[in-house]
């Protein structure tokens, strides 16, 4: 089958770039007030593409739509039906909330935005170099915008210098997208690789299963004339191609609660505070992994000394969890495994596949990670608070701080939702028990397990240390599933009424 090169001018820049130099950003959640005006704004909106330019642009604007938003823009039902069911049902569908851990204080009914009372139709994301955001937003909005949209929320962000609110260097580990589509996807993966198929992050290309993820393929007609043909069905137009899904979650972080709890656990001993906090995360605050750096290169982590120092590791060298606890955040979020434990090849691989290979208690406890990667593009909000400041009690009107979590993936259920459900929230992850993610866990009881607020640190010799009574540090305050379309698809949506 023909594989075509990626047309970067059709892809929204956020898929390729994190816009790190544009330290200011604002995510504007909107509802369509006037369809004609909304379409007309979209037609002229200058959405930044993924083309690399030198010098890089100083501002960028990205647009993504919810299912309700596409409907409001007049996208027809048969076209909509081609989007994934997670996207169509939305993040707040009741059974989904249960799987995502969005219950009790995380429940959509408690959210500031995104629940049935205030579903956004679209999000316009503005990025700008320091000092330029306000002017940029002003120039991009104006009269047509006011006519078109009703403002639901303006989610501000803050630049804490690549540090997330708890105080850890963030965004160190990201999958490397195989833009050139060079990986042989027909082969199983014997060793962990950080290079992930393009189709995992962009619709219309082959994914890790060597298949095309479902997306709307529509009839070729005048309305769809501007869209690209589908690689796997050239007679159809591919509305998904060069687009992807964007998951947004507004996560409030209780920074004071986090450091006060840790400090109290170790009796205020500063060195021990750092150690326990690092155990929760699986990295030190500076970003150094607790797991051991290996000599063998890992494809896709980079070759710079700091890249090696921070990412050239798997958990193979730490089978007992004594360096990096099994339940540490980074070990849950990316177990860095391959298709089969022990990396068998040839006959041994066949034997293992038949289930006749060696069977250690800790073998094969989790799925192969390459099917469950996400590209994180979130930003912090609220003022920074250092760990030592966090030990002081909060004054009245202590500002909210946290993460505007954003991730990109082509298959929400297999990537974001799986990760959230099977690895982060799961109290049984990696044969653990009674504990979920130390940072993100909601600590809610489940049937048969009233206690889920533990955290264990394994030891090589002797009994694990267990911390109990972890409070909930992160609370979900909003969220939605968006479609981040290609620039061609945006033009198609802008003309949706012409059909």
């Amino acid at each position, binding site marked *: 089958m023909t594989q075509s090169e990626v047309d970067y001018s059709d892809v929204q820049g956020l898929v390729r770039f994190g816009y790190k130099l544009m330290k200011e950003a604002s995510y504007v959640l909107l509802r369509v007030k006037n369809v004609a005006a909304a379409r007309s704004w979209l037609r002229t909106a200058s959405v930044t593409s993924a083309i690399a330019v030198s010098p890089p642009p100083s501002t960028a604007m990205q647009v993504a739509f919810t299912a309700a938003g596409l409907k409001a823009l007049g996208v027809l039902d048969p076209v909509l*039906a081609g989007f994934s*069911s997670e996207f*169509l*049902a939305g993040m707040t*569908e*009741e*059974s*989904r909330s*249960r*799987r995502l851990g969005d219950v009790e204080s995380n429940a959509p009914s408690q959210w500031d935005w995104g629940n049935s009372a205030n579903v956004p139709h679209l999000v316009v994301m503005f990025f700008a170099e320091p000092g330029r955001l306000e002017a940029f937003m002003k120039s991009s909005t104006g009269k047509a915008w006011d006519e078109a949209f009703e403002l639901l929320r303006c989610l501000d962000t803050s630049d804490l210098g690549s540090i997330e609110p708890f105080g850890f260097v963030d965004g160190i580990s990201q999958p490397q997208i195989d833009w050139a589509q060079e990986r042989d996807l027909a082969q199983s993966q014997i060793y962990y690789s950080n290079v992930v198929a393009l189709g995992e992050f962009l619709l219309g290309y082959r994914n890790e*299963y*060597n*298949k095309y*993820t*479902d997306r709307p393929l529509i009839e070729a007609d005048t309305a769809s004339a501007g869209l690209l043909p589908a690689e796997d069905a050239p007679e159809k137009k591919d509305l998904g191609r060069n687009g992807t899904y964007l998951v947004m979650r507004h996560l409030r972080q209780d920074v004071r609660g986090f450091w006060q709890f840790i400090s109290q656990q170790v009796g205020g001993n500063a060195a021990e505070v750092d150690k326990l906090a690092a155990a929760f995360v699986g990295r030190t605050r500076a970003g150094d992994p607790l797991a051991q750096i290996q000599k063998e290169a890992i494809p896709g982590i980079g070759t710079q000394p700091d890249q090696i120092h921070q990412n050239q590791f798997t958990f193979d060298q730490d089978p*007992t969890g004594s360096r990096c606890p099994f339940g540490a955040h980074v070990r849950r979020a990316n177990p860095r495994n391959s*298709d*089969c434990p022990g990396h068998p090849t040839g006959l041994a691989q066949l034997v*293992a*596949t*038949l*289930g*006749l290979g060696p*069977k250690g*208690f800790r073998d*094969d*406890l989790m*799925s*192969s990670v390459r*099917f469950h990667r996400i590209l994180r593009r979130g930003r912090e909000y609220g003022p920074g608070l250092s760990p030592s400041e966090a030990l002081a009690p909060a004054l009245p009107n202590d500002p909210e701080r946290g993460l505007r979590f954003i991730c990109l993936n082509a*298959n929400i*259920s*297999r990537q974001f*939702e*799986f990760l959230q*459900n*099977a690895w982060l929230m*799961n*109290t*049984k992850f990696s*044969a653990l*028990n009674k504990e979920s993610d130390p940072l993100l866990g909601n600590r809610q009881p*489940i*049937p*048969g*397990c009233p206690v889920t607020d533990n955290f264990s640190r*394994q030891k*090589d*010799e*002797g*009994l*694990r*240390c*267990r911390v*109990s009574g972890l409070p909930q540090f992160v609370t979900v305050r909003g969220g939605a599933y968006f479609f981040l379309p290609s620039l061609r698809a945006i033009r198609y949506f802008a003309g949706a009424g012409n059909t």
Partner: protein
Amino acid sequence: MTPQASFMILAVIDPQREAQLRQLLASMNHAPGRADPNNALIPFEQFDTLHFARLLIVDDKTIDDIRVYGLTPSTYPLYLTFLGDIDGDRDTFLEKLARFAPTGLRSIFSCCEGFTSGTDLVTWMKQHSCSSAAEYQNWPGRTVRRAREEAALHEALEGYIKSNASAFTGVPPREIHAELRRFISKQTSSGQLMLSVEDPTPPDWSISNSLHKVGVPLLFLIASPILLPIGLIGLVRLRGLEKTDPELCPRVDLAYSNDLARLEDHDVANQFTAMGSLKPGTVRLWTAILVLLVIDWFARHIFTRGRLGRVRTIHFARWVFLDGKKRVVFLSNYDGSLESYMDDFINKVGFGLNLVFSNGVGYPRTKFLIKEGCSDERKFKEYLRRHQLPTQVWYYAYPGLTAVDLEKNGLIRQGLESPSLSDQEASEWVALL
């Protein structure tokens, strides 16, 4: 050891009483699909040899799929099925059921054809029992009692460690082992903790199990002069069929999928039921029969220690032929969400999945019976979800415990019962706690 068995009662629902039956089933639940363990009709909890049980109305929505072969679909009655996984043999359990829940069972079964107030419950249940073509048990020999006792043991150890945490810091594993052994021996002798000794294996079961173990391969061997040439012809024919058999994996109706989801993910384990029609023709029928025979043999004799192939999340599973082998139903109890269950299957035992399910109408196209098929992940997931049936009542004897938990608890007990461990063994044992 006490072997496990299963039962499955299948009866045609009296169309006049379907609504009444649905009401009755709903009355057994404390939440949609989840049985009240002590409900008035069948107080599951009181049967201490029952692992899992479910009642469901077998309402196959895919009967019309056979039309893709130009065939007219048969008309199938609506069935009620009541099934469970138990310790000991089936007949003893059915008798116990009839003894402890006669009224409830009678009111349920009276919604089925041919059941009257004069019907003998046990005889009727036996007459309406159907056997599985293949069955898998996560850990033959692990009884409900043992699963619960070992879970209580683990809890007791955790509690003791928690309240004596300082006494364990920096202590070498062998000493920890010795200390915990002392604690548990006190607990058991004072009767606070129960660790029952395994019952002797029923001799007739041992004999039949050994006969099966040797007999099935032997039969294959004896029949091989005939089987091999026929098989070869069959394989060539199959390869031809594979290329032309139509796929039928449309997107699942969102409302149907959401209805199924409402019954899922309340506990760490879930139920799964899927059914469909076999592809027409002798070749497909015999392929299905043979493949299930082989799976059954492997499940009974090889995959007996917590793993079906590489999959560690299945408690019990079975395949059952229905309606003169025209339809197949697959029923399982598994850990985690359906998405991770399906991923596990695709990535770890995709070949086995293809071998069995590709004989069902509309399955994603396979290559040489084992390749491709389910690796078309989206199609496969839609296919499975579309063939899934809601379970009206589901009971689970050890909520909150996964198959891996049960295995771990078993290993903890095993280590605890050894008077002394080597340093290495003690280290590994302590790591389980």
